[in-house]
């Protein structure tokens, strides 16, 4: 039994205890049926680590790398499916990590400036996936669509174990690297003078990003990964005053988006991934409008 199923065993009584208080007709099943419990636990784990990672991505101006690596993961999934793998996520993980390392090296060696290397990998790997599926597989089946737009039904026991292992390891690494990451992001030269291994930190960060993105693909879908990776962190930036408080706000916005998104999608039978992304974007819009209005009315002198 893997770590994911162990966590599920731990929280499942708690979820069942909460279930009677949960509103809606279908939504309570997320707290009672094991299949949906798996999905809920995976969604919560993924959202938590995505929030921390996203906060760092945002300040490193790497908001789109998640999108790029998610498309790369899709290419990996496609290759895995065609080769008949029982768990194509492993292929996605290998593709994503290797691509992240190459993108990182291309950027630090300044072979290509800015986002160009991300763009090349994004389109190249997506195309590989599509071509491979057309030629050797059955094209875009419902399973494949699940990887593109997220499908909670895809999260079997094996997936949950992989997702839980990735998220927990990533969360621990991000916390251990917290100060180093902040330091190298804000002033890389000063960090280097202090003796921090700037390049190694960047490389490890890229690998963590690649792994986390793979863990998110089933929950929210390759095309929508950015919604949980960047949107909650961006919303938090509107509210928080320090980096630490931004991290906490990111969790609040991310988890709200997941719970509300799952609730609405369950009640209205819309896709869960799309609904979570929609709620996350709406939260951003509401906070942004509220902030502009409040700042505009309350303290014009502060708004320089």
């Amino acid at each position, binding site marked *: 039994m893997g770590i994911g199923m162990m966590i599920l065993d731990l929280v499942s009584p708690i979820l069942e205890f909460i279930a009677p208080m949960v509103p809606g007709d279908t939504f309570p099943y997320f707290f009672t049926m094991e299949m949906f419990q798996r999905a809920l636990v995976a969604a919560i784990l993924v959202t938590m680590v995505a929030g921390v990672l996203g906060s760092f991505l*945002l*300040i490193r*101006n790497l908001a789109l790398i998640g999108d790029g690596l998610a498309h790369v993961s899709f290419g990996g999934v496609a290759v895995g499916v065609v080769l008949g793998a029982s768990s194509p996520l492993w292929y996605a993980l290998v593709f994503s990590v290797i691509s992240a390392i190459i993108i990182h090296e291309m950027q630090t060696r300044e072979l290509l400036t800015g986002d160009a290397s991300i763009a090349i990998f994004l389109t190249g790997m997506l195309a590989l996936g599509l071509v491979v599926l057309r030629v050797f597989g059955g094209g875009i089946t419902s399973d494949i669509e699940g990887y593109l737009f997220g499908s909670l039904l895809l999260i079997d026991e094996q997936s949950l174990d992989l997702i839980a292992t990735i998220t927990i390891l990533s969360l621990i690494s991000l916390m*251990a*690297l917290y*100060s*180093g990451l*902040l*330091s190298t*992001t*804000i*002033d890389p*030269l*000063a*960090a*280097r*003078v*202090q*003796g*921090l*291994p700037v390049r190694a930190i960047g490389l490890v960060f890229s690998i963590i990003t690649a792994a986390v993105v793979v863990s998110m693909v089933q929950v929210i879908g390759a095309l929508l990964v950015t919604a949980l990776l960047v949107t909650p962190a961006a919303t938090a*930036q509107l509210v*928080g*005053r*320090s*980096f*630490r*408080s*931004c991290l906490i706000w990111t969790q609040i916005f991310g988890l709200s988006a997941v719970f509300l998104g799952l609730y609405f999608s369950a009640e209205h039978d819309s896709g869960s991934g799309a609904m979570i992304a929609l709620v996350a974007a709406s939260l951003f819009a509401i906070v942004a409008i509220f902030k502009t209005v409040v700042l505009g009315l309350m303290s014009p002198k502060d708004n320089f």
Partner: protein
Amino acid sequence: MVVLNMQPLAVGQVMKQSESILDIKDLTVSRSGKVVLNKVDLAVKKGEFIGLVGPNGSGKSTLLLAILGVLKAQQGTIDIYGHKPMSRNILGKIGWVSQAAAVMPKNVRITVRELIQLGTLNSRNMFLRRRSIHREKVDRAMEMVGLEGVGDHDIARLSGGQRQRAVIGRALASEAEFILLDEPLVGIDRNSRNSLLKLLDKLCHDENKTILMVSHDLAAIRQTAHRMIYLEESIRFDGPTQEFPDLTSLAGLRGIEPVHGHEHETNISNSIMIETDNAELSKKEEE
């Protein structure tokens, strides 16, 4: 045997008093095939306040980066606290103050305290950090740069001068002894500029820090530095600030012939006078 008759004690004292912390010999650095620094010799003693000036692209930043060990020298040696640049033995002795106006990202929500805390970081304590050990250092650094009242403020909401102070605070939190500054006066209004210079002067005299500062602002740097270095590929002037040449002789050092003869010269000296006047005026305003 005659050598033994010398007074070793006196020699020792002299050595201690003017302990050399940086020794650059015959340094040549090329960047993308072009020689930027050519045979530079430079020695810095503890407690000096040195102003490094020169036109754009004259190699000032290259020299700083070479001292930090980020750029490799093609020829010559750099000896800093008796070690090579970037050596593990000198970690924490050197503080780097980047130009806040250019480097500090404006989209990051980070407080003054969070930024200054980053100064206490090194490769040994990077993963496991106990905040309490560093709190004292951070508090002291904030006090030294006069930002103790705004510790919880977002960096993005500070003025240019305060932001630069915060970056200096980061270097001080590492308890660095030798502080290198790259254009700290850019993007800062005149009043803040003067109080920033006072801060640097205080760090040099009261805290016994050694300071090497690059600046375009000749008037400002002459106000504070004890020693001036004029760099343009090689060192063209190195001496006490009061002996630093006026702009006309400087043009001579650079091999520039006056274009308009006498007329040009008076224009230049007028403009220096105006700048100095302004600096003095704002100093009075502050008091």
